[in-house]
Every structure is written in C-alpha cells, then in structure tokens.
C-alpha cells in the first residue's frame, strides 16, 4: 500500500482537479437548479461512508478474534473516515433537502439511521480516546454492532415510504448525469483509500515509536 501512495495521490489529485469541470458540464436539472449539483458530492460520500463503516466493522471483528494489531489500525483509521464522510453527508443533505423538500431535516428512517450510524462512529472515537485500557476491544465490539446498521441504512429507503429518493434512482439517472456521478464516486473512493493509507501509516509509526520508548525505558 505504501508504494502505491504517491501514484494514488497524483491520480486522485488530477481527478479532483478535473471534477469541477465535469460537474459543471453535467446536465442541468431544471426543477432543482444549481442545488442539484450537490448530488455529485452527497450520494458518493454516503456510499463511501457506508463502505468505510463496513470496513471498520470487519476489521474490528478480525481484531477481536485474531488479535491482529494491523486490523485494529485499519479499524481505527476507518472509523475516523466514517465520521468524516458521515459529516459531509449530513451537512450536504440538509442543504439539498431545504430546496427539494422545503425543510432542513425530517426524522424519517433514512435520515435517522444515517445519523445514528454517524453517531456510532463518533462514539467509537470517544471510546478509543477516553476509555483507557481495554478501549480497543470495547471499540471493536461497538464497531461490529455499528456495521450491522449499514445494511439497514441502505435498504431503509426501499422498505419504508420516505422522503429520501430510493437507491434505484442511481441506475436511472439521465446519461448526461450518470457519467459525472460515477466519476465523483470513483474520485471520492480513491480519496478515501488515500486517507486510509495515510492514516494506517501514521498509526503504524505511532506503534513503532511506542515500542522504541518501551525498549529505551527497559535499557535505562
């Protein structure tokens, strides 16, 4: 992963630089106007958030049963990114909702579940920071429970009649919007990979540093 970092950085940077042009040239949606451009940010961030929560849950489960410190680092990095992308989703969501539905927020299943998912990732970070010894296992169990939430968030729009558009909206986008949409999704996914790699690397360096300190203390 570490060797792939620089090429990944270059590709993601180039894709990010081109994204505004792509989005500006996408089909103009008359009823929503300029606000519809949030689509290229909101939905892909949501996808990445769900993916990241899944990664965090799976890595935590591996850590719980296999006790591998590498899995713990992946879980930690992924939880932070879930919180980050979740924040993007619940900030861009209301901006769009105000125009589309006339309200900022509604306690309907999709929104509530996403909010709860984001809350779980934030409480994971709280636990890791403040719960002291044993917090790694506590957090891992929490992340496993949190990842159960993900399928429910995904299907919630299809099961209940909600304000939020269904998941079937994405394949039926008009061709002029479909290209930019998947382009944005890919860009944000690469961005996620980039941040994940960097964060895992940081966590690994930190573990090495701790070991060095311990070795030094043993010697003196």
């Amino acid at each position: 992963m570490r060797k792939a970092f620089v090429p990944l950085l270059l590709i993601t940077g180039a894709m990010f630089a081109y994204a505004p042009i792509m989005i500006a040239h996408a089909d103009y949606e008359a009823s929503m106007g300029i606000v519809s451009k949030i689509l290229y940010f909101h939905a892909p961030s949501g996808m990445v958030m769900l993916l990241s929560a899944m990664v965090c849950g799976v890595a935590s489960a591996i850590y719980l049963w296999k006790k591998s410190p590498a899995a713990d680092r992946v879980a930690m990095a992924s939880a932070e990114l879930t919180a980050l992308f979740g924040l993007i989703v619940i900030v861009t969501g209301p901006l769009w909702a105000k125009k589309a539905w006339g309200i900022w927020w509604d306690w309907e299943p999709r929104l509530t579940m996403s909010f709860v998912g984001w809350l779980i990732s934030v409480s994971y970070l709280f636990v890791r920071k403040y719960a002291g010894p044993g917090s790694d296992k506590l957090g891992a169990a929490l992340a496993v429970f949190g990842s159960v939430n993900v399928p429910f968030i995904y299907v919630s729009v299809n099961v209940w009649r909600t304000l939020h558009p269904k998941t079937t909206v994405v394949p039926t986008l008009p061709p002029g919007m479909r290209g930019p949409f998947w382009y944005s999704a890919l860009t944000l996914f690469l961005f996620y990979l980039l941040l994940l790699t960097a964060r895992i690397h940081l966590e690994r360096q930190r573990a090495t540093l701790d070991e060095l300190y311990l070795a030094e203390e043993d010697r003196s």
Partner: protein
Amino acid sequence: MLGILLLLAVVELVLVPLVTILFHAPLLAQPGLLAALLAAGTVGFAAVGALFAAMLVRARSRDVMLPILLYPITIPVMIAGVRGTAALLQSPPDVASVTMWVGILGAFDVVFVTLSLWTFEPVMTE
C-alpha cells in the same frame, strides 16, 4: 442478562396497567401484540445493555461512556418499540403496522443477541 430481563419485565408489569388507567389508553385492546412488542423490545435492549455494561466495568470514565455507547446502538430498538406502540394506540389499532414493527424488532433481536453472544467471549477474556 437474565437479571436485567427480569427487572425490566417487573417494571413493565407495573407500568402497563398504570399507563392504561392513568391515561385511559386502549393499550389492552390487543394484549397479544402488546406482549410481543414488549417482550421483543426488552430482549433486544437487555442483550446489548448487558454486553456493554459488562465490557465497561474495567474502562475509565465508564459512567459517561455507557450512555454514549448504549444510546446509538439501541436507538433502532427504541424507535421500533415506540412506533409499534403508537400504531397500537390508534383507534382502531393499526394491526398491520404493529405486526411489521414486531417483525423488525424480532430481526434486531436475532442480530443483537447473536452478536452479543459472539463478541462476549473475545471481549471479556484478556
């Protein structure tokens, strides 16, 4: 977990008749469905509650941590229970949606109890 279940069941036994009397609520029109809602909700809540309470015994600042952890995890159970009871309280009771919420609660129970049993051992052993 059995202790929590018992405690919650006793509290429910007292509270349900009290609510029915004090608010003139038609809670007992469908006793079977109400019992199903209460039982499913209690099991889900107790399973997660017992696991997290046991895990937090050794953690630092556990009195702050428990609500932070328990609240987001049990929200689906609470929502399902509240919405199910609300549907039950309509006149006439909306049996179709009560059954749906009982089903959702049951699904959450299966997932929560399974996960609690799975994670309990690796979490509690050093």
